[in-house]
């Protein structure tokens, strides 16, 4: 009899123990929707790997309020697959928060499904403007939009190029060239719009197919319209072709600003050697001045970089850092505040986030646009930065607090380059 009682008590205790353990250990299950295979796989995996480090860091501390973070991976190879995988995450896996996606077309398609099911979509790396232009309530994007790249090029022209060249910003002549897919068109049009807003003289805004084998006509148009500044949005092949033909056509301008893709690649500098020097380029904030960081952000960034290198045997670049930044924000700020994965609670917590400049590993702050804003869900404090190729390496030169070097202008003419002379204004 005694034994029986002990047995029952033991069983009860055991049962209680198991259930209490189960409650304590029930993890935060987060959907990870990336192109893990296929043609986008390289940077898709790289982006996710950044987020994996954020997961390691939070789980090592014992998780979020005692709950570990777990990924439920979904492979969105193309927009169609991204949709079905997002549906699977929500319907089968009962996921309440989807983290993704790196590629804009995948993000655009999958976030539609999440919104319809009132599930949070946390976008870490897709930059197409239209993703946050649909008035979605459950969509949040941590990084800057493509249009912000064009705007920054014009702002830099207005605030730095014009004063340095002792020109009235309203008299400065701007030439814009962009490849005619969605990426180039978005950046090019935003630059043209911003330049006109500031009263600049946009002398040419030319688009072209990045698959063209000849850009001499673009160089000729610029030669006849004589812009002081050229703002260019190009992929790799057209950025190489244009700069070569600019040399052949002896096209000279005072400043040349690329806006990501081609002009930011190490291969670009390798192709042109010293002829790549003094070109500007706009990219997400990597290699910024550490004085920007506030609190322990710099330590977090360094910890992330070392952990990433240890786990994946190379140091993280833009994509991995974007993945880390978005996941870290989610795990350290948003979810602890929300207290659960309930989409309404996460939404409320996300909209309440107010991180000033210097508070993330990208240097910029976080403030999501509320649902009544035309860019609902966009991190309005996310910015790209402007770099300049000097000695064939990219150095951040703008905005001021992020800068590690001073911008050198004007761009030497081809004749000056051949003679090895520069006439930079101090």
């Amino acid at each position: 009899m005694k034994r029986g009682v002990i047995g029952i008590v033991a069983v009860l205790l055991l049962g209680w123990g198991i259930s209490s353990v189960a409650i304590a250990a029930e993890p935060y299950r987060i959907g990870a929707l990336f192109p893990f295979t296929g043609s986008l796989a390289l940077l898709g995996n790289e982006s996710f790997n950044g987020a994996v480090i954020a997961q390691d860091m939070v789980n090592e501390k014992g998780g979020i309020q005692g709950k570990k973070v777990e990924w439920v991976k979904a492979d969105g190879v193309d927009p169609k697959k991204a949709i079905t995988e997002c549906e699977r995450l929500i319907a089968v896996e009962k996921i309440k928060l989807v983290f993704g996606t790196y590629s804009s077309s995948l993000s655009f398609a999958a976030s539609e499904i999440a919104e319809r099911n009132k599930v949070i979509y946390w976008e870490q790396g897709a930059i197409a403007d239209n993703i946050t232009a649909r008035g979605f309530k459950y969509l949040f994007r941590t990084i800057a939009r493509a249009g912000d790249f064009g705007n920054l090029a014009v702002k830099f022209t207005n605030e730095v190029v014009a004063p340095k060249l002792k020109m009235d910003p309203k008299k400065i002549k701007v030439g814009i060239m962009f490849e005619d897919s969605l990426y180039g068109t978005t950046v090019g049009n935003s630059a043209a719009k911003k330049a006109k807003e500031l009263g600049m003289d946009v002398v040419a805004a030319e688009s072209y197919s990045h698959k063209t084998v000849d850009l001499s006509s673009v160089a000729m148009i610029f030669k006849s319209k004589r812009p002081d500044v050229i703002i260019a949005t190009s992929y790799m092949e057209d950025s190489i072709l244009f700069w070569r033909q600019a040399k052949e056509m002896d096209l000279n301008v005072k400043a040349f600003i690329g806006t990501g893709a081609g002009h930011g690649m190490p291969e670009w500098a390798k192709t042109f050697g010293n002829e790549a020097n003094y070109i500007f380029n706009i990219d997400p904030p990597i290699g910024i001045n550490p004085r920007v960081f506030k609190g322990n952000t710099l330590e977090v960034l360094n910890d992330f970089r070392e952990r990433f290198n240890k786990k994946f045997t190379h140091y993280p670049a833009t994509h991995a850092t974007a993945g880390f930044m978005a996941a870290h924000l989610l795990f350290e700020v948003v979810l602890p505040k929300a207290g659960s994965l309930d989409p309404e609670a996460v939404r409320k917590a996300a909209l309440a986030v107010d991180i000033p400049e210097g508070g993330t590993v990208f240097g910029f702050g976080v403030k999501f646009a509320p649902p009544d804003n035309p860019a609902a869900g966009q991190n309005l404090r996310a910015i790209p930065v402007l770099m300049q190729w000097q000695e064939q390496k990219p150095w951040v030169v703008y905005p001021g607090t992020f800068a590690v070097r001073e911008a050198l202008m004007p761009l030497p003419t081809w004749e000056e380059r051949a003679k090895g002379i520069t006439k930079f204004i101090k």
Partner: protein
Amino acid sequence: MDITILQLIINGLLLGGMYALISIGLTLIFGVLEIVNFAHGEFLMLAMYAAYWLFQLYGIDPYVSMLIILPLFFLVGIAVQRVTIQPILNAPPLNQIFMTVGLSMVLQNAALFIWTADYRTVKTTYSGLTLKTAGLLISFPRLVAFLLAMGLIAALLIFLQKTYTGKAIRALAQERKAALLMGIDVYRTYQIAFGIGTACVGAAGAMLIPVFFVFPSVGSLFVLIAFVVVVLGGYNSLTGSLVGGLLIGVVEAFSGFFISPHLKEAIYFVIFILILLFKPTGLFGRA
């Protein structure tokens, strides 16, 4: 005349020379032998890689490397014809299309596997060299490519008119069965013609690498325009290909400047369609 107009004409002619150069091999293979070779662009890609690696590994100037690439690609052409085209010579033309499209995919993906998707360029002393005369700018490597296109076309014209093999190729193009009855070794002649066509693409690749760049699918940028040039020229006319190439180059330079760089490809296609509407056999083709 306005200096801008003159400069546009020069740019257009130099660009057209490049198009003509790329199309010569195709004129022979597609125009004369009537083999629809969709792998033409990939041969160009391979030639550009050959010139690139000869320069990077052995420091051989691309213009000099042509002496190696020409005979090498002649042999490559013979081998490709022997292995892939010859067995299906009597099959419907559709089979040739499938075969060459397949070959193009295999070559593109093999290149992607071996050399990765990186863009590769060579930097020679004359890469950005521009000749300046009376305010006009002429790119030196483009001028060389233009002159080579002229030279190659002249040499091929003489070869096709004067030599026995040349005459055999033309006989084959006119009527295969009759050529066979006249005692022409049909398979051998096909192989030689395909070899010459491929060698011409090889030369084009070596000429292009100082002004362009190479990556596994670079051929796809050029192959469509090469077909357009050949059809515009009138299928089997080398002179036609030269004129067709130059015409498209000049149209592209002018429409890019006066209308929009965005529309220049569309405009030369409109002109292409118009010419074929009024002269379906192409500029120099005989009905």
